[in-house]
Structures are given as structure tokens and as C-alpha cells.
């Protein structure tokens, strides 16, 4: 009998240790040592000691890793400019809590929950509409306000009271590009849509609507699947259709492929794209084939001299930052919107004078500020979208992005 008792005890101990393992996993959430920080215990988002956590929701890896990296630079720079936030008369050091959403909607949900259980007071990010839509409901359920950087799809903020954004929207962008195409004499175009990518499909749809409303025709609408790398078949179709311009607002990683393969096929057209193509990667990867490409962007270098100067100095000060920015100190729109998103968040925390999610949300919603931004001023409409009516059209000339014109469309 004694033996059995012993074995029962042993079993109990095993169970306990098993459960112990389990609960330590729970504990790990709140006392995550790897974040090398004073951890925050407890339910609500809170500030402990004199630090406060702001979550960064960006893709570091995956198909949009490059875009995410650029926005991270913008946020890091903003953090270096403004490392503290004042609440209740006390200075709190802002600590950035990075979570990589891997450009993947599944991982996005986990990353969002990790941020919430880390106790962040607000979230900044991210690049790519799909991941933001996937994470949005977690933020609103936990009442953590989030400020999107370059997620331009309408559904990111629609029906979500806690998601805001500092960039403009696809319907606006689609109209801008349709106007540009029509005004520059392209009455017949082809479009290339990436099925499954909210950003691209949304833009193609709004572009097509706006373009046909202007009187133009979309002669050929081609589609491809995510992760495709062979565009020869659809480019041959476009060549057959004989259009002079192609609207291809894809993720930037497809851009060099499209351009190079089009060159191989002898397809010379005016390429028109969205904000994602406004990247130096394109010039590096597509070389001469990139010349002439037109894209719009949130911000064009030269728009804000102070921001340009500070950012360039900051990038040049550290070789690893410069490497992340593809060995250049050129400024793209993503840097600016990310910088602004961080600034908006800190402004809102200060004007709410609280770390309470609902109060910060209300402060963002009622914000009307113009100072301290790269491409401000900021005021948000009832959906949580920054009210913007200007887009900057840029073109690649001799291997560099050059500003072409400012397009205004009233929503």
C-alpha cells in the first residue's frame, strides 16, 4: 500500500510539474525577460516605474519585410527625437515593444495578442493592409488604440473604433492615379491585380471605377497569385492588347519582376503604381528598366526641411541604419507616415493625460494638430482616417525618384 501511495504522490507531483510548466508559459507573457525591460504585471495596459510601452506592429520578415524595415526606421527616429512622454506631470520613457507580424495574417493575430498581453498602451503600425485587418479586432476588443502607418485599405479602420491611420486611403489613391493617367493622355490601360492581396485588389477596383468614370477604358485586366514569379504569360497578353500604360499597384516585391520580364518581352509601356513601388529597392533591382515608372507617395523629400535634415543625419550616423535603408539616406513616404504615427500616438497620450486606452482613443479622434509632424497636419474623420487630400506623384528618372507633381483630390 505504501508503494501505491508513493506512486500516487509521484503522479501528483508529475501533474503539478506539468501544470507548473503550463502556468510558467502564462507567466512568460507578463514577465517576458527577453524584452529586457521592467515588465508590466496586471491586466490593463499600464505604465510601471517610469517606462511606458508602445507596441510596434510591423512585418520584419515575409513578403513585406522591406517595407516594414523602412517604417521601423521612421519609428526609431521618432523615438530618438521624442523618447519620453509626460503624463500626470511625470516623464515616462517610451519603450518600443517590437512584434514581427511576418507579413502573415495568422502570425499577425498572435503578434497582436502578444502586444496586448505585454501591456502596451498603444500600437503603431503597420505596413500592409491584410495584416492590419487581421489584427484590428484584437486591438479594439482589448481597447488598445492603434495607428496604422501605410495600410491604405478602407477596411482597416472601417467599423473599428480603435484603429486610426496616418496615410490616405485606396479610394483616394485610386482616383489620384486614374486622374494622372487620364490627364497624361492614356485613355486605354491594362491593370494587373494580385488576387488575395487586399491592398492591390482594392486599388485596382477603385482605379478602374474612377478611370471608367473619366471616360477611359481598362482594356485588359490581368490577375496573378501571391508568390508568383513568372509574369511572362500575362505580360504577353498585355502586349497583345496594345495598351500604352499599365496600372500595377502590387506589393513592391513584384515590381522588379514585372519590369524586367516586360523588358525581355519587348513590352514598353508607361508603368503606373501605388505607394508601395515608391522604394529604392525597385531602382536597385530593376536598374534601367525602372526608368519612367510613376508612383504616388505619402511624402516627397523636400516637403519638410527639418524632418529631412534630422532624418538624414540620424541615418548617416549609424552604418547599420543606413544598411537597412539600402545604403542610402533617401527618404520615402513610409518613413514619414511611420514617424507621424508615433508622434500622433504620443500627442494623444499627452492630451489624454492618461494611459487608459479609451481616453487615448478619444484624444486621437478629437485631435487637430499641425506641429511636429513630417507630413501633417492631422485631423481624423469619423472612420479614424487622417484627412488628407494631397498625394505626391513621383517618377524614376536616371535611376532616382524625382518629384513630378502634386495631385489633389477632394474626397
Amino acid at each position, binding site marked *: 500500500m505504501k508503494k501505491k501511495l508513493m506512486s500516487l504522490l509521484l503522479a501528483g507531483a508529475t501533474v503539478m510539474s506539468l501544470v507548473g510548466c503550463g502556468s510558467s508559459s502564462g507567466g512568460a507573457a507578463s514577465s517576458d525577460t527577453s524584452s529586457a525591460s521592467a515588465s508590466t504585471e496586471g491586466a490593463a495596459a499600464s505604465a510601471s516605474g517610469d517606462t511606458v510601452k508602445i507596441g510596434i506592429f510591423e512585418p520584419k*520578415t*515575409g*513578403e513585406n*519585410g*522591406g517595407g516594414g524595415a523602412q517604417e521601423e526606421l521612421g519609428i526609431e527616429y521618432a523615438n530618438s527625437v521624442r523618447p519620453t512622454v509626460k503624463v500626470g506631470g511625470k516623464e515616462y520613457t517610451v519603450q518600443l515593444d517590437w512584434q514581427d507580424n*511576418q507579413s502573415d495574417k495568422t502570425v499577425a493575430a498572435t503578434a497582436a495578442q502578444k502586444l496586448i498581453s505585454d501591456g502596451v498602451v498603444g500600437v503603431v503600425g503597420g505596413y500592409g493592409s491584410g495584416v492590419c485587418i487581421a489584427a484590428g479586432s484584437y486591438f479594439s476588443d482589448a481597447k488598445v488604440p492603434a495607428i496604422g502607418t501605410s495600410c491604405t485599405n478602407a477596411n482597416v479602420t472601417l467599423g473599428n473604433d480603435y484603429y486610426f491611420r496616418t496615410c490616405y486611403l485606396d479610394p483616394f489613391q485610386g482616383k489620384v492615379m486614374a486622374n494622372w493617367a487620364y490627364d497624361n493622355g492614356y485613355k486605354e490601360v491594362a491593370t494587373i491585380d494580385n*488576387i488575395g492581396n487586399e491592398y492591390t485588389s482594392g486599388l485596382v477596383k477603385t482605379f478602374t471605377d474612377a478611370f471608367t468614370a473619366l471616360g477611359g477604358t481598362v482594356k485588359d485586366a*490581368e*490577375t*496573378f*497569385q501571391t*508568390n*508568383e*514569379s*513568372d509574369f*511572362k*504569360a*500575362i505580360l*504577353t*497578353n498585355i*502586349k*497583345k492588347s496594345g495598351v500604352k500604360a499599365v496600372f500595377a499597384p502590387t506589393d513592391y*516585391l513584384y515590381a*522588379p*519582376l514585372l519590369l*524586367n*520580364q516586360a*523588358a*525581355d*518581352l*519587348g513590352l514598353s509601356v508607361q508603368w503606373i503604381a501605388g505607394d508601395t513601388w515608391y522604394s529604392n529597392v525597385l531602382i*536597385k*533591382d530593376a*536598374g534601367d528598366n525602372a526608368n519612367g515608372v510613376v508612383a504616388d507617395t505619402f511624402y516627397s523629400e523636400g516637403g519638410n526641411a527639418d524632418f529631412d535634415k534630422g532624418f538624414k543625419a540620424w541615418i548617416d550616423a549609424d552604418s547599420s541604419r543606413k544598411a537597412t535603408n539600402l545604403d542610402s539616406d533617401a527618404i520615402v513616404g513610409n518613413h514619414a507616415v511611420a514617424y507621424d504615427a508615433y508622434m500622433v500616438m504620443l500627442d494623444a497620450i499627452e492630451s489624454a493625460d492618461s494611459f487608459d486606452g479609451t481616453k487615448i482613443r478619444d484624444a486621437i479622434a478629437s485631435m487637430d494638430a499641425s506641429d511636429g509632424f513630417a507630413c501633417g497636419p492631422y485631423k481624423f474623420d469619423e472612420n479614424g482616417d487622417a484627412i488628407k487630400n494631397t498625394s505626391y506623384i513621383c517618377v524614376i528618372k536616371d535611376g532616382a525618384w524625382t518629384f513630378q507633381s502634386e495631385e489633389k483630390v477632394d474626397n
Partner: protein
Amino acid sequence: MSLSYFIQQLLNGLSLGGAYALIAIGYTMVYGILRMINFAHGDEFMMAGYFMIYSIAVFPWFISIPIVIAATVVLGVLIERVAYRPLRNAPRMSVMISAIGVSYLLENLANYLFTAMPQSYPQIPILKYVYNFGDISVSRVTILAPVLTIVLTVLLVMLVNKTKLGMAMRACSKDQETAKIMGIRVDNVITMTFVIGCALAAVGSILYFTDRNTVQPYSGSLPGLKCFVAAVIGGIGNIPGAVVGGFIVGICQIAITAAGYSVFSDAFTFVLLFIILLVRPSGLFGEKAVDKV
């Protein structure tokens, strides 16, 4: 449909099919001898793409190409030694799981070493030269792919049919035990099979990636599966069959995409597989396998 459009699309299909065919040969040879799907073969092909990116940064292209081929061969032989040889007498399922494990490892390793960001593949000017025939324009690599594939296949078939090594290979694929008794070093023959398969995959990777300009950690996995299907379509173990299968798969993929059904461009390959397995399980050119349980 104009003729020039048709020819242009056909050329697209042939160049894709050529690259597929070269990879499919590796599958069909390994399967012929070891009776296993080398799931890692597609990832070896992907690694060959990365090798090119890194070697061309240092060497001119004519030195880089042999380096890439050599590196891929070393990788393939290493994989065989470490992951497949210890399991030679293990159940088939273990070998297959090991192959999947290697594929998983290579993808994650590439993700770690080279990041998940797609990297642009070097544009070798001599391959990228564009010819124009009226409406049709093709780069040199597009024409080179099918031609090179056929030349290499002819050489390989000669090797298998005419040389001693080829005889040993055929013996091993018929019956390994007997081959061993006859004094053939089965392990050496298997290593040679991997050497040939990987060298062809490296050549295939140059043709494939030059046309597509980009390499990422997962760019080998789906083409790999498709090339295995190509090998099955041609009749597994049959080298010319694998080449024909590769061209069929490549041309079908282009045709489907051109018709506007890009969603099905990958899936259609597997539909072909189902049809072949139902109608002619031994493939187009395969011998009827008499397989005891």
C-alpha cells in the same frame, strides 16, 4: 489569336518547361534507384539560386557557373550522406519524413541565412540579350533553356546506356541486392546519381531564376513538387519521360495563366497528376511496374 502571340506564349512555356525538365530528371533518377521522393530536391534548386547570387558578387559569370554547380552537388551529396544513407534499411515512411525534414531545414536555413526578403538574381548580360523578330522578342535564356535541356538529356541518356556507370545505375534500379552481389558499389552509384541530379538542378536554377530575377527561401518548394509530378507524368525512372513531362507541365502552366486562370496554374499540375495516375499509373513512357507487396 495572332500567330506571333501564340509563338511568344509557346516560347514562354518552352523556357519554363526546360527548367522544369532539368529538375525533374533529378527526381526521376533518385526515385529510380532509391524509390523515394527526394522532397529536398526543389530546395537544393533554391539554394543553387542563392549560391549564384553570392558567387557572382565575387567572380565573373563564367567562373560562377561552375562554382554554383559544384556547390549544389556538394550540398546534394551531403544531404544524401547525412539524411538518407543512415535510413537505407528503414521503412519507406521514415525516409520520406527525413526528406521532408531536410526540405524544412533548407527552407528555414535559407530564411535565416539570406532573410525572407526576395533577393534579386544576377542578370548575366550574355543570357539576357534580347532578340527581336518582328513582334516577338525573346531573351537568349528563353531560347537557350529548351535547347540546353535537350542537349543535356541526350548526353545523360548516352551516359546511362553506354557507360559502365550507366550500366551500374540501371542494375541498381532493377535490383539493389543483386547489383551488390555482382560487385557494384551501390553507395557509390547512389552518390553519382545525386551528383548528376544536383548538377542538372543547378543548371536548371540558372535558367529558371535568370528568367524570373528573384530568389526567396520558398521559391523551390512548389516548383519542386511540380517537377516530381512531371517525372511521374513521364513515367518515373525514365529520363526522356521526365523531360517530356517537364515540358508538358511548363507549357500547361503558361497556357492556363494566359487564359486568365492564374489561380489554377499550380493546381492544374496536380490535376494532371490525378489523371495520369488514374489512366496510366506508370506514366507516359514508364514500363508497367510489376510490384509485389
